[in-house]
């Protein structure tokens, strides 16, 4: 790893503090999925993706990241700010009037690090395919990485995109599915289960990987493995995570998908995640 495990853990703890503080401050937002995806976003932006700051909107020569499940904007914004895309102070504006930090990521306000608006689910993988096709035309060897929710895969458009990428052998496309098994109305397997998700991707001609998405060492091993593959198929990492990970009373429940902690709950959450790099 380019960054030590100890340092990644420090960043993750601080990111979790940012998430619960941002959501608490405006009493709105999506803490559950954000907390569950803390490790993957911290890993991607601190140890994996190659990008410039300020980055070029067209992503030429850079790895391009698309957050398709845009509702986990708190973790995305915290990570972007802490790697230097914008001032930490700006996290105070999350979901407030005249902010660049919209409830769901947007480009109209020109927030650095965001290339497409997401939030209406199921659209990010298609956009990622377009970027990957653009990179192919430009002979640009960098990867396009799309993070999606598992519930999001209930959208039909995802399967149009999965079919296209497999058919066209877009091996520079990497999808990551946040498989936390939860969605707003309950457990994903109760609402609309996938049965065998891995074999579904495999049958659409994707190379598949699985990992624990809340464990940096496992994330690193899996990313190294997929990177060293010389296969010509698009890649998917099905990542088991726990919604609300890192805050005990939020863990594993769909109930914290989209509600904010109260003052007391915030205190508890902060006690469980020490301030390592300074609060915003």
């Amino acid at each position, binding site marked *: 790893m380019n960054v030590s495990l100890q340092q990644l853990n420090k960043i993750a703890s601080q990111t979790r503090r940012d998430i619960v503080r941002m959501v608490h401050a405006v009493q709105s937002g999506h803490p559950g999925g954000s907390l569950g995806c803390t490790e993957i976003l911290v890993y991607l932006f601190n140890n994996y993706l190659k990008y410039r700051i300020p980055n070029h909107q*067209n992503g030429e020569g850079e790895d391009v990241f698309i957050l398709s499940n845009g509702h986990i904007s708190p973790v995305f914004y915290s990570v972007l700010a802490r790697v230097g895309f914008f001032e930490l102070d700006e996290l105070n504006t999350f979901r407030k009037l005249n902010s660049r930090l919209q409830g769901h990521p947007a480009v109209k306000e020109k927030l650095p690090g965001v290339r497409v*608006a997401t939030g*209406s689910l199921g*659209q990010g993988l298609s956009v990622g395919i*377009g970027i*990957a096709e653009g*990179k192919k*035309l430009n002979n640009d060897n960098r990867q396009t990485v799309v993070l999606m929710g598992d519930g999001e895969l209930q959208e039909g458009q995802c399967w*149009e995109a999965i079919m*296209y990428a497999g058919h066209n052998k877009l091996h520079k496309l990497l999808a990551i599915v946040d498989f936390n098994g939860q969605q707003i109305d309950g457990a994903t397997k109760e609402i609309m289960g996938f049965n065998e998700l891995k074999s579904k991707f495999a049958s659409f001609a994707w190379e598949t990987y699985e990992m624990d998405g809340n464990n940096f060492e496992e994330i690193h091993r899996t990313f190294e493995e997929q990177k060293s593959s010389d296969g010509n198929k698009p890649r998917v990492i099905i990542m088991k995570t726990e919604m609300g990970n890192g805050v005990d009373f939020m863990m594993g429940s769909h109930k914290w998908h989209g509600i904010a902690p109260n003052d007391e709950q915030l205190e508890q959450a902060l006690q469980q995640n020490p301030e390592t790099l300074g609060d915003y």
Partner: protein
Amino acid sequence: MEQKDTRSGFGDALYELGQEDEKVVALCADLTGSLKMTKFKDAFPNRFFQVGIAEQNMMGIASGLATSGFIPFTGTFANFSTGRVYDQIRQSIAYSEKNVKICASHAGLTLGEDGATHQILEDIGLMKMLPGMTVVNPCDYNQTKLATKAIYKHIGPVYLRFGRPKWPIFTKETDEFVIGKAQKLAEGTDVTILATGHMVWQSLQSVEILEKEGISVELLNIHTIKPLDKVAILNSAKKTGRVLVAEEHQKSGGLGESVASLLSQNYPTKMKLVGVNDSFGESGKPLELLEKYGLSVSDIIQKVRSFD
């Protein structure tokens, strides 16, 4: 008079743009022949993306290609270019401010025999409501060619609407085409006709007949529905005091409503609308359908005559 389909104007211009600029890419959802994109596909196979019957994915891929600095032209029927993919256009293209050209053939009743499942009459309304979206609806082969080249130069999302049937070519290849600038086809003093798309030809035929009856008609081709040429429309309304709008679209949500909004707030003027009256279409031949649904030349003439 020579006749050609407007979709061929799109296909021919797309091919020429492909020759001029390597950033021009095209996407199609299993309708390459219908959209007249075959020439582009054969000449630039690596810049042509066949997505299969998957329009939502097509709009997303176009957004990604635009992000990467390309100028994507998507091609499918108007029905599948708008209603089928409205949220994809809204979020991934319009709100994301992507330079995507949504090119839509077989719009309106005149696609004919396929019937109402394919005859979209609501697409102008859907597209003009989106912030930042430009909506262009040219009238014949030559103008569709010019319009395709003009939207290539325009930076921002565009909806380009054209059709299936062979239609008289009455504008010149050398005519000026400026997005948002109405084209005056007849100078008159009694009544203004504002027409768009195939209805410009219908209106032009009515002008000659009405002139013989002593009614002097001013005809403006409103090839751009958004942004609307407010100055030209207001000036003509002030001159004639009577405005008829003709479009192959629902009266609700179309050009007529845009003009009514403009005039009622700035210069209230007597208006009449020629368009489809809150109804789906059906199978038939293009001219038969225009007659049955009140969009014939004689419908225009009668409505003009009935102005006070």
